[in-house]
């Protein structure tokens, strides 16, 4: 069959139409909604009342939203740094010729396969429980009394507890990305370097690192967009220090079980637009700063 323009459009047609309908249209509609006072998501357009930037002004004055933004910044920065570091470490270790390479890769990736909610509750109810939890039992056994006494789920520590759970479930995903990037590097480079007399560290810093810069950029962008949608673990580890913008949007839109004080879909829309803009800006900055080196193979 000839690959003419007509055929191309025919094959792409359904996918393109679906993308436009399911992704782009809601984005435009939500952005429009953020400038109106709207009762519910599917309120017909003639029931919207224009408020200009009113929703945004209200949003940025709400302490709960500001707190959630600060929380997500901390999550993005600290958990991001630690997750990337650990993932990279594992990827280097698991691209060498060690025994059980495939087994360890699967093991590290396993938490990523389990639903976030399940992982969250495992940490919440089992690991962090301060009467019979894993940490309490382990640290008591090791006679580390001060660590055993830590109230992991109290207001002071709950952010760190949630971060541990978050990092645990994400290391595997990014490790796989880095492994793929490292394995793409042709072994010719390493052989040539060996012949020239380069050591392990020199090979790493001069060959490996520069050639997976692009993977770092992709990982950072993915991390940003996935973190902004942080919801499941925030629901599990409820608290002010673990409140996220996604959770805020959800509560504004649907209310809590007893309140439902004047739901405002327009306000929720402005929150969604804010989150999206931040992701776009941060991703663009990351991609401009880290330029991928072109290499053959």
């Amino acid at each position, binding site marked *: *069959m*000839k690959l003419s323009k*007509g*055929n191309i459009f*025919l*094959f792409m*047609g*359904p996918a393109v*139409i679906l993308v436009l309908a399911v992704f782009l249209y809601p984005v435009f509609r939500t952005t429009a909604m953020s400038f109106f006072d709207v009762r*519910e*998501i*599917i*309120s017909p357009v003639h029931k919207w009342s224009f408020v200009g930037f009113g929703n945004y002004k209200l949003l940025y004055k*709400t*302490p*709960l939203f500001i707190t959630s933004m600060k929380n997500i910044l901390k999550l993005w920065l600290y958990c991001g740094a630690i997750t990337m570091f650990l993932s990279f470490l594992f990827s280097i270790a698991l691209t060498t010729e060690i025994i059980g390479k495939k087994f360890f890769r699967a093991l590290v990736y396993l938490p990523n396969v389990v639903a976030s909610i399940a992982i969250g509750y495992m940490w*919440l*109810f089992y690991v962090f*429980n*301060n*009467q019979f939890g894993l940490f309490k039992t382990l640290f008591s056994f090791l006679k580390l009394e001060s660590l055993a006494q830590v*109230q*992991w*789920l*109290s*207001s*002071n*520590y709950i952010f760190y507890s949630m971060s541990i759970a978050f990092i645990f479930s994400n290391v595997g995903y990014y490790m796989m990305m880095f492994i793929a990037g490292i394995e793409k590097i042709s072994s010719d480079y390493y052989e040539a370097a060996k012949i020239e007399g380069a050591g392990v560290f020199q090979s790493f810093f001069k060959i490996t690192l520069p050639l997976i810069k692009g993977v770092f950029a992709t990982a950072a962008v993915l991390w940003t967009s996935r973190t902004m949608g942080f919801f499941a673990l925030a629901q599990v*580890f*409820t*608290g*002010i*220090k673990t*409140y996220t913008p996604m959770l805020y949007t959800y*509560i*504004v839109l*649907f*209310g*809590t*079980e*007893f*309140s*439902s*004080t004047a*739901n405002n879909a327009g306000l929720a829309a402005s929150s969604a637009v804010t989150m999206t803009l931040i992701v776009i800006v941060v991703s663009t900055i990351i991609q401009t700063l880290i330029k991928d080196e072109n290499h053959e193979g």
Partner: protein
Amino acid sequence: MKSKLVRCMILLGVIALLATPVFAGGSAESKDVVADDGSGLQAKLEYWSSWSANEPQALILEDAAKDFNKLNPGVKINFTFNGRDNRYLTASAIQSGTKVDMMDANADNISALWRDYIADLSPYFSKTYPTTNGKPFLEELMPSMTKLSLALFDDKYVFIPFVPQAFMIFCNKGIFEEAGVTSYPKTWDEFLGTCEQIKRAGYIPITSDNAYNTSWFGYYVTRLIGDDEASELATDPQAWKNPKVLEAAKAIEELARRGYYDPNIASNTYPNGQQSMVINENIAMYINGTWLPNEVATTTPDGFKWGSFAFPTVPGGVDDQTAGAYSTYGISVSNKTTEQEREAAFAFAVHLTTKFDQAFADDANIVPVNVNSTWPEDLLEAREVLFGYSTRYPAQTSLTKGANSKQIILDAAQKLMGGLITAEEFVAQASRF
């Protein structure tokens, strides 16, 4: 030649793919034609419920519908069990044209979210039905729950109440007896004495967890200044400047200072509080709702005795123990239903709350709404408390009503009860919303 045929087939495939959404969802709009066989009620009803399919309430609903269908073959009821999200799923569905005829939710949610979608059912309440023994249906139901509809909806009956709930102090009667507490405290001073007795007997007087941390402060402050003013605390940061709010906070701080709170209270995540209470059997009191014994039923040992009493009066307070937090779930009927559908829907709700009401008590340990039903043993004392209520606080006290403030107040209350902050710090932190 071959490529032209392939192209045509692909084109048809694309058209078919794009056309399916148009044809697939159509049945929601069509009204089925039900043959009139002369047996009276005729309708095909869609019921959207706040229960999950595996909860006992859902099973009872299905049993009641099957039984109702035997007596009224012309009425078929189809259930969609959405879980608690039903409150907004139904609103969205109705707005987009889906046929939803009956729906249930907590009365406060019906008031906040469904006002525009539900019918006034007042005329049906004064009629008699096959299962009401010649009395008007209204007389079958707990008066406080039907009056709730009048209070929330300008003197109109817009829902049939079922699964009522009351919020009060639940206790382990075994511990009370061991500690020598012979009667439930009625005043705050008596309450402090009770806590002291329990503590001396080697037990933990009070616990809570992060789902209900506003309850102790919430009840105290509402007793002190009344519900109208207490509701402002959820929406207006300036309301926290009232010196009586600090007074209430100090009372709670005092409980923490005296060591009456569970040492784990600062890190108790739901359902740790209630589960510890029944598993370890060393905690005496926990503010919660009448759903509590059922929620912990699988882990409660035999011989565990549940007691309950109303929150005590507080010094200088405006309300006494006749005021309390309660609510109910209710079944509403869509205002888009035909007269026939409405009649059938109401008749089913009557059947559920008369013939099947005892099943809620027997099979699910739930408060029955019918005045003739026998309450579950675990809730007999709760019955006395609820029947003593004549002033209503919103479910779980007004402190939980503000979407922007709820988590902030919860967090601050948790720290106050854990002894981590002072009453002044609590007022400052809880009002920062």
